[in-house]
């Protein structure tokens, strides 16, 4: 069997049905064999599009995302997407071609030291040296990518290996025993969970923070809701945790951190016990870490022991899978009735941001219109910038895996290809992309994929003619010196949409928004929706860098 066929059959054995990629010299023999396998290849127009699409596919489905790229520039074009997946713990297997073995290390045409370049931004890398290694390496790569804390894995394969003969794998590939043991799930320490239950029961001002590690399990929505209803502990989500907790009312504090809600940030700063699950106390969450949650004892639950104690001092560490932890905590913790005082206090500190008075399309109200059009199954994908924060603040994803965003890396250009990947992973679900004119221009070559497959993605272009988040910082912290943040000479968006046979709608004011968007969202067609928001609207609330979470800036409605 050829190395290429060995690889594709190993992918089939892992249940791979879709891969995203772009062929080049080193992977021609791989693409040559594709026709013999039951794997659908989606041709993106840039390798970065392929890796983000694989990422969106993985986030939307919970399966491992797979992409192909050729050697040299093909592989280096993946790096941003791999780093994005690594920061957000997304399982990917990226197959990169490499120059033929005899040419290795000679600065050959399209040679790059892919495993060396990718090593710092992956969970693991494999360099194949013989075709016979392929079945075991692929099996192990998938195992590593999805087991424990997920992450991206790169397999680098020289061109000559694709055409090297090796016997087919008899029993599929094997994961080395040592590696299997290394990532074996920790047995949850129930004694620690009981201690957590005790701390939470006795707490006067408890709060939960849930992150991406909770968002990856479908069951967690129910488990968390059950726990919260029983124990009356209010919940705040990190950006990566959006969609896990959907109850309405005071128990749902919304997002915390730099652009978190007043209620969430107040809760954290005044809590006496914090239960943090599947989150990693990123600086965008804690702000100045020395001022973070000064009164709280912290219970930190994470599947990765290295996260515990990394950024904040933890009082009770629990290494566990979030689902198992929630299940056990639900078992051992009794109902707590009287939290009214704390909840009232939080309610009193819930403030709504005021929209600019003379705005014709204020972001907050516009997002509220979009939110009404989302259902339980709608997958919201965002890019990075102001629109991302507005989406996180004003949209309410209704379930886990319904809010896909580049949280850790903050990769502009992520959203559009990720939305494409999400649509291929969940063809029956509505996919809404929230992007900005800055982010969208970073990967809009993938409009060709939308055109080819008539993907009914709703591209909501929050268009303000600026690199808006940078502009906001320049306004607030750099005396309004708007250095290089004006995106003039923007394309004619209508003609761009036309060029790719995609429908175009322009929304200029709030009065039109509801009706026009309802039509668009109910049409099973691709749309580019040009949302002409205020050029100078800023994202509030905001905690400026270096401040504590209680030093919030913003113009609030219910303030004297």
């Amino acid at each position, binding site marked *: 069997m050829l190395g290429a066929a060995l690889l594709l059959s190993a992918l089939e054995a892992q249940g791979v049905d879709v891969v995203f990629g772009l062929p080049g010299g080193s992977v021609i023999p791989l693409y040559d064999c594709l026709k013999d396998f039951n794997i659908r290849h989606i041709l993106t127009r840039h390798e970065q599009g392929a890796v983000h699409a694989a990422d969106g596919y993985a986030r939307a489905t919970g399966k491992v995302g797979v992409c192909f790229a050729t050697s040299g520039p093909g592989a280096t074009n993946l790096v941003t997407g791999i780093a994005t997946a690594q920061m957000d713990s997304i399982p990917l297997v990226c197959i990169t071609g490499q120059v033929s073995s005899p040419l290795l290390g000679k600065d050959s045409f399209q040679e790059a030291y892919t*495993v*060396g370049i990718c*090593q*710092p931004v992956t*969970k*693991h*890398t494999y*360099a194949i040296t013989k075709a016979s290694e392929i079945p075991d390496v692929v099996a192990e790569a998938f195992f*590593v990518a999805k087991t424990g804390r997920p992450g991206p894995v790169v397999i680098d394969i020289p061109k000559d290996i694709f055409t090297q003969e090796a016997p087919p794998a008899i029993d599929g590939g094997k994961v080395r025993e*040592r*590696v299997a043991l*290394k990532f074996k799930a920790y047995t949850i320490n129930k004694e620690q969970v009981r201690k957590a239950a005790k701390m939470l029961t006795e707490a006067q001002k408890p709060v939960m923070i849930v992150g991406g590690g909770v968002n990856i399990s479908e069951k967690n929505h129910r488990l968390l809701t059950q726990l919260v209803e029983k124990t009356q502990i209010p919940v705040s989500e990190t950006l990566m945790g959006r969609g896990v907790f959907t109850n309405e009312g005071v128990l749902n504090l919304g997002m915390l951190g730099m652009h978190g809600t007043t209620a969430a940030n107040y809760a954290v700063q005044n809590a006496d016990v914090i239960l943090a699950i599947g989150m990693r106390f990123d600086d965008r969450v804690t702000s100045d870490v020395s001022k973070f949650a000064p009164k709280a004892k912290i219970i930190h639950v994470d599947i*990765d*022991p*290295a996260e515990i*104690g*990394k950024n904040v001092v933890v009082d009770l560490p629990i290494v566990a899978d979030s689902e198992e932890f929630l299940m056990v905590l639900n078992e051992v913790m009794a109902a707590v009735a009287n939290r009214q005082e704390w909840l009232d206090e939080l309610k009193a500190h819930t403030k709504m941001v005021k929209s600019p008075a003379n705005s014709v399309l204020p972001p907050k109200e516009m997002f509220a219109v979009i939110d009404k059009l989302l259902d339980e199954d709608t997958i919201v994908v965002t890019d990075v910038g102001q629109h991302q924060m507005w989406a996180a603040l004003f949209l309410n994803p209704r379930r886990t895996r319904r809010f896909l965003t580049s949280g850790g890396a903050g990769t502009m250009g992520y959203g559009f290809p990720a939305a494409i990947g999400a649509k291929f992973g969940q063809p029956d679900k509505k996919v809404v992309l929230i992007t900005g004119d800055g982010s969208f221009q970073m990967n809009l070559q993938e409009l060709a994929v939308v055109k080819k497959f008539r993907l009914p993605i709703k591209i909501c272009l929050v268009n303000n003619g600026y690199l808006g988040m940078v502009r906001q910082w320049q306004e607030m912290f750099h005396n309004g010196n708007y250095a290089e943040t004006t995106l003039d000479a923007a394309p004619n968006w209508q003609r761009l949409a036309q060029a790719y046979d995609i429908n175009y709608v322009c929304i200029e004011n709030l009065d039109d928004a509801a009706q026009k968007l309802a039509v668009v969202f109910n049409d099973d067609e691709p749309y580019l929706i040009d949302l002409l928001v205020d050029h100078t609207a800023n994202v509030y609330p905001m905690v400026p860098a270096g401040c504590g979470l209680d030093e919030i800036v913003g113009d609030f409605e219910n303030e004297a």
Partner: protein
Amino acid sequence: MKHKLAVLVENNPGVLAKVSGLFSRRGYNIDSLVVSDTEDKSVSRMTIVVDGDAKTLEQVTKQLHKLVDVIKVNDLTNDEIVSRQLLLVRVAADHDTRGEIIQLMDIFRARIIDIGRRSLIVEATGDEDKIEAIIKSLQPFGVQEIVKTGISAMVRSPKEK
């Protein structure tokens, strides 16, 4: 504080880069690093001396554990260990000082392994304190060149039944 770590890793190409890359990426300070194969040819052993507080060491250990190629991490700091490093030093020596240096090196059980017209080369093994002492004692004669290996360390065998 200095900590000695014994790290067993897969004997793969690239594993040294993965380990050293982890240290540089996360800003941990390596004082010294020794790698060699072991009784099992598929396994290499790294002895790493890392400078940092207990919190840093905990992170180093946990992050090392996350590398797929890392088999085992042992912190030897609180163990009874023997540790050795190898020193080669070229020191200025003419016929007036040569005898004195040789006598001095005898005390340390260091050896003279090369003699030139104006210098000689001393070879010594020992723990860090001894190596430091040898270098200090040679300094008055004019140390011209120093080569040291990092530290290799092993846990002492149990003494009681």
